[in-house]
């Protein structure tokens, strides 16, 4: 894989050997300390990059699972400032990407625009951003700030994205492209969409890691997605479900962390099976 499109060397390295496992959790869900333990469990489970959700009050791109995680985190007092402290408190070695909505980025700091937020993110040690409500058309200011501070700006490509739009997005993206596996919002599914192979086919010519997300909840899913050509898998709702269950049942944080680690291992194993299968096909002789 090439790292030529990215600002972050850490992210580029994450895709360097074999499929990347990119888990997501909402930060502060259900509380600050548990959330720290959970994110650290993801690393133990094999995470190559971790997407940290900074909760926003109107998460329009999320499905019900992550929406409820966001509500829990906000009710527990999560704010952008606490989010940066959280990142600083985390004891993990993998690159961290902030996933949030544009208004929080825009409002940070005294001066206008996204630059202060990016500066603070860089200082906290974040390596990139995913901003679901910021299409390429509106992204210039954030992209400029990211370039200034050496962070990646990840864009989402949907099954409906094609032609000029795809070119425009791919000319803006850095780090990796987030390939949306199907239409709709985030959320674990029991099936994996046929769109994935099509989308990866459309993206084949672009020289940037392709991480597929939306609906991946099991090792089998991961296997099929990677076998179809993905450079990485992004998993959010399936992990948030584990956190939600822990919160609902009042389980000890260690138990939940262990489950997150176990599910991560399953996903990583699946992804590796898929990668092997693909290698086998790719090298038929």
């Amino acid at each position, binding site marked *: 894989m090439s790292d030529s499109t990215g600002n972050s060397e850490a992210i580029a390295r994450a895709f360097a050997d074999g499929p990347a496992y990119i888990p997501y959790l909402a930060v502060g869900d259900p509380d600050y300390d548990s959330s720290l333990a959970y994110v650290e469990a993801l690393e133990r489970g094999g995470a190559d990059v971790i997407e940290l959700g900074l909760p*926003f*009050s*109107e*998460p*329009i*791109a*999320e*499905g*019900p699972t992550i*929406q*409820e995680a966001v*509500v829990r985190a*906000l009710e527990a007092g999560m*704010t*952008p*400032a606490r989010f940066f402290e959280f990142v600083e408190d985390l004891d993990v070695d993998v690159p961290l990407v902030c996933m949030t*909505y*544009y*208004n*929080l980025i*825009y*409002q*940070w700091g005294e001066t206008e625009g996204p630059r202060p937020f990016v500066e603070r993110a860089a200082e906290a040690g974040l390596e990139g951003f995913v901003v*679901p*409500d*910021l*299409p390429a*058309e*509106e992204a210039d200011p954030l992209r400029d700030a990211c370039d200034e501070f050496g962070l990646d700006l990840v*864009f*989402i*490509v*949907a*099954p*409906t*994205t*094609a032609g000029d*739009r795809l070119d425009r*997005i791919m000319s803006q993206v850095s780090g990796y492209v987030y390939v*949306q596996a*199907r*239409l*709709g*919002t985030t959320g674990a599914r029991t099936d994996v969409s046929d769109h994935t192979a099509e989308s990866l086919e459309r993206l084949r010519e672009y020289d940037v890691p392709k991480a597929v997300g939306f609906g991946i909840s099991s090792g089998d899913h991961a296997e099929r997605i990677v076998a179809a050509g993905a450079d990485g898998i992004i998993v959010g709702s399936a992990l948030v479900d584990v956190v939600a269950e822990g919160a609902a049942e009042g389980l000890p944080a260690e138990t939940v962390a262990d489950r997150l680690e176990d599910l991560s291992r399953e996903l990583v194993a699946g992804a590796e099976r898929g990668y092997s299968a693909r290698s086998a096909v790719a090298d038929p002789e």
Partner: protein
Amino acid sequence: GNFGRYGGQYVPEALMPAIEELTDAYERYVLENEDGFMDELRRRLRDFGGRPTPLQHAERLSERYDRDVYLKREDLLHGGAHKLNNALGQVLLAKYMGKERIIAETGAGQHGTATAMAAAHLNMPCEIYMGERDINRQRPNVFRMKLNGAEVTPVTAGRGTLKEAISETMRDWAGSVEDTHYVIGSVVGPHPFPAMVRDFQSVVSEEARWQAIEATGGLPTDVVACAGGGSNTMGSFAAFLEDSEVALHAVEAGGASLEVDEDEGVAPHSASLYAGEEGVLHGARTRLLQDSHGQIVESHSVSSGLDYAGVGPQLAHLVDEERVTPAAVDDEAALEAFHRLSRTEGIIPALESAHAIAYLEAVAGGDGGDGEDDEGDEYDADAEDDALGDTVVVTVSGRGDKDLESVIEETDRRDLDAGPDMSMFTGGL
């Protein structure tokens, strides 16, 4: 797609192709009248909707405020509010675009009922998302939507109100964009919605403009309209924007107070033009109600239709440009205006519209009329007397039948003098 610093298209990538398709359709059908789209819409608004609605000289308000007050009667539009202008336009556009399904979100149910009516009229399947709590509070509107054949889907997430319904509709659209059109109910959201909804609603001011000329021989000095998301406001102002001599007043819901409670994440008002700050919400950069972190706060108003944390980006721009004057009227003044218009003019207005009426009292009240609401004579009638000229058009955006329960509860709770003896109604209707 921008109005000065406001506007834009802050939406998930999955929706962008649909929004580009819609932008193209908007430009062709609405702006260029391709295939006679606008002709058909105007004909349907006339025959099905009842346009033109009257511009009525309000005799007793004119006397009371010592100037000519004209009411633009959108309460007489089919469905009982201006909402149909937009809903019918968008559903018809969806039909021209070959879409096969309509979705919309609704809070109190006004936009949902208008969309359901338009969809029934145009024979389009329709699904309306509505928070579960709102469903329980607005059962008559839910029933009306169902009578019109719409599916009403309860949204149980969060508080079960408008914001969750918006999220849920976005989610549906994100998964169904190919055959589905999302009818946004106000001049908000990503481009082309703010421009398109304005164009569909501008029939209000196009009519009011010629009607005022016909009635008075000239343009009005002022146009007053209430502002929530701003579709009624932009509809009432659009045709007057170039008439620099016509002052435009956007009256927002001042609620109980204009302060924000950061701890609770609550603004006890909905005055995003008057008291909000720039930000990005529901697809557009605009003025909105947020806390210091950028989290959207919960807005409040006695009038559910004004109860929204954002506002149309063009309206935000027009306020920045000082073309539009923002004002806020509190719940109590709106309730008093509701009772005043009902009693003296025989028109029971929507609580939204009552805010616009209340603005007259706030800036011109106290000297004219029969004085029945005057409390002593300490009120200095001349203080703001130049805030309004001598010919004022006020849009009555809707009728108040939907608000009877709220009016009982809110009037009673405040022990207001305005209105009839309500002792027999304090348990509700």
